[in-house]
């Protein structure tokens, strides 16, 4: 057992922190807090990170990484979250799956671009009838020999409006059991026939419906083998599911600093003695959430089979998030109700936005119910119905 980072991991963490402290400017933060996706400041930041091989530390050097561990990858996500860098960066999430199952041509074409922050991917999983039941994906890709023609619809695809490529899970065989007829395509988002239409959550996050109308996709854009898409998606989702808590740590620190420093609030801790107890518990939970996320990442370094570790990380961190922002709202009382542009808003009103936004985290990326199901079935081997 060892809770220390390796010297290489520490060095990477130090270099990354120094970079982010210097380079994350108010423009980047404003874009992140707007929840509208990757903007020009964010793009500039990740490009600079890519130049310094800071974006994909666990990737091989030939693709722009540093051949470090998945723990280092976790450090990247955590520090980006802490410094309010752009999120999500799904190219980084699917990178390992691409490395495992992609053709040499695909790896050459995409991996370096992702690691250099020059190209972005957007996940294309969810459909109106395929949420938790992802295997029910219906968007249809018909094999025409040297290309596929794709028709159908995706929804809640959050990165598509700024991505270069759509990581598309689609049905290539409607005759077999659902999960055996799926394939993953890498689709150029600028392909004729693709329409991206915005949707907004109650916290103002931009996501999208994506319509495919007779979209021609070259067969070289198929990932791996036809009808093996479920396996590939599973591999990608396992890693994507790990929730990194850098942003929660940051918000916690911001709130505590605020309570300590702001004149209006000098008395609030004295007036509400429960605050200290709640904050102590939240601090503990954030720390544990971080450990759980690293523990899940460590599975990838050990090369063992992921069982339920990423599900637990996701479940724990998402429920903590909701609890934390609820407590923050209660601490601020009526002031917490004020939204961003109110004159009296403490902390620029981010508390109320984070509170509203926190709802989706137990739903996206696999709902809490699904995570508990995975933990019960795979973790505990409880019987299937």
């Amino acid at each position: 057992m060892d809770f220390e980072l390796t010297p290489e991991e520490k060095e990477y963490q130090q270099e990354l922190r120094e970079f982010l402290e210097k380079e994350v400017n108010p423009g980047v933060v404003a874009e992140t807090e707007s929840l509208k996706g990757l903007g020009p400041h964010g793009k500039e930041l990740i490009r600079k990170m890519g130049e310094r091989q800071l974006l994909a530390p666990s990737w091989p050097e030939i693709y722009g990484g540093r051949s470090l561990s998945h723990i280092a990858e976790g450090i990247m996500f955590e520090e980006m979250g802490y410094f309010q860098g752009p999120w999500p960066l799904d190219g980084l999430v699917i990178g390992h799956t691409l490395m495992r199952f992609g053709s040499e041509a695909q790896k050459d074409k995409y991996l370096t671009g992702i690691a250099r922050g020059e190209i972005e991917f957007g996940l294309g999983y969810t459909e109106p009838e395929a949420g938790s039941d992802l295997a029910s994906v219906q968007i249809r890709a018909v094999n025409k020999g040297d290309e596929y023609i794709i028709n159908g619809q995706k929804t809640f695809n959050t990165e598509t409006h700024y991505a270069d490529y759509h990581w598309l899970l689609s049905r290539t065989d409607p005759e077999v059991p659902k999960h055996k007829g799926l394939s993953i395509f890498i689709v150029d988002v600028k392909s004729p026939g693709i329409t991206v239409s915005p949707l907004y959550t109650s916290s103002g996050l931009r996501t999208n419906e994506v319509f495919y109308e007779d979209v021609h996709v070259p067969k070289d854009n198929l990932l791996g083998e036809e009808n093996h898409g479920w396996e590939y998606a599973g591999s990608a989702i396992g890693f994507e599911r790990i929730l990194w808590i850098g942003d929660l740590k940051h918000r916690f620190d911001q709130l505590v600093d605020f309570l300590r420093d702001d004149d209006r609030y000098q008395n609030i801790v004295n007036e509400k003695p429960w605050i200290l107890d709640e904050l102590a518990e939240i601090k503990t939970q954030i720390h544990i959430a971080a450990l759980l996320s690293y523990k899940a990442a460590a599975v990838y370094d050990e090369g063992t089979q992921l069982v339920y570790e990423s599900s637990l990380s996701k479940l724990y961190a998402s429920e903590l998030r909701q609890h934390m922002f609820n407590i923050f709202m209660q601490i601020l009382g009526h002031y917490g109700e004020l939204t961003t542009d109110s004159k009296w808003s403490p902390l620029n009103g981010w508390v109320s936005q984070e509170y509203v936004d926190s709802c989706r985290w137990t739903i996206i990326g696999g709902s809490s119910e699904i995570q508990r199901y995975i933990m019960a079935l795979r973790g505990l081997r409880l019987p299937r119905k």
Partner: protein
Amino acid sequence: MNFGLSEEQEMLRSAARDFLTDKCPKKLVREMEQDEQGYPAKLWQQMADLGWMGLAFPEKYGGSDMSFLDLAVLLEETGRACLPGPFFSTVLLGGLPILDAGTEEQKREYLPRIASGKAIFTLALTEASAGYDAASIQLSATPDNNGFTLNGTKLFVSDAHVADYLLCAARTGDRGKPEDGITVFIVDASLPGISITPLKTIARDKKCEVSFNRVRVPGANILGKLDEGWSVIQKALEMASVAKCCEMVGGMQAVLEMTVEHAKQRVQFGVAIGTFQAIQHHCANILTAVDSSKVITHEAAWKISRGLPCTETAAMAKSWVSEAYRQAVKLGTQVHGGVGIMEDHDMSLYFRRAKAAELAFGDARFHRKTISRGLNLQAV
């Protein structure tokens, strides 16, 4: 014991529900969130014509002589409908306090106008400390010829931007306990020196900053007695807390129905998701929240309507329902999955309102403090 409504109350409920379903659709609710005034004048007048504002006023003041419990039934329906506008403020933060503490002259002056929809009221209570204790009241009222001069700032005043009158809690005396030396004034909102700024809030519910800069108010406008306003405030807060619980119960019921319907309709893995035990448990938990909230809220409203003391019951209601509603919307959102978090889904209307209601008139911990004092465990 009887936990049900009377036949008249059932009729009141169903008439109110039909009216609001027709005249206050969610599309209107969303429009009013963005609208500066925040409510349509036509709807306001229709509600007045139905006798809603004066429901619990005696007939001689233009009311219908019905009870607080009858008003509670109506408030549940307004909560269900997410009714926009100053109905709650006018009745609970203006009308009922005047009915409770006003002179005969004041009642004749204001209550009929409230009942006919011609006067909008609200209560200017909380200040920068955002607290509901007596010590938080610092806005000063200094004697001045035949009246008083008010100086200070109130925050989070609901509907001040459209109010004709503000009941303003001010400090007229500084000796002894903070509860002593508080006076409530009926303040004409158009008086010089009053400046009102709407605040942007999570529920988009038109809370305002109200600053008083040398506002001169006549002595005749004291509600209750000089320096003895705290008891007026306490009574008002008690009724407002219970009334807020009624709104919350109505909202919670809507959340429960929406969620169960979704669980029956939404198919994943080849079955309605309501087949899954996890979803069933979520729905049962929302039902628990609804029913537990109903009984305590109804008991508190019943006690108020009977003129029985209900300080502890009101505190129990507000503390319990505040948390229950939050949990209910949380579970309701969760069951709805991706669609429930979208801006244009009705769930988000209830979600945001639940948080505002939780914090109104004291949050759960504030009211549990009241209850805990009754345990006599604290060192004096």
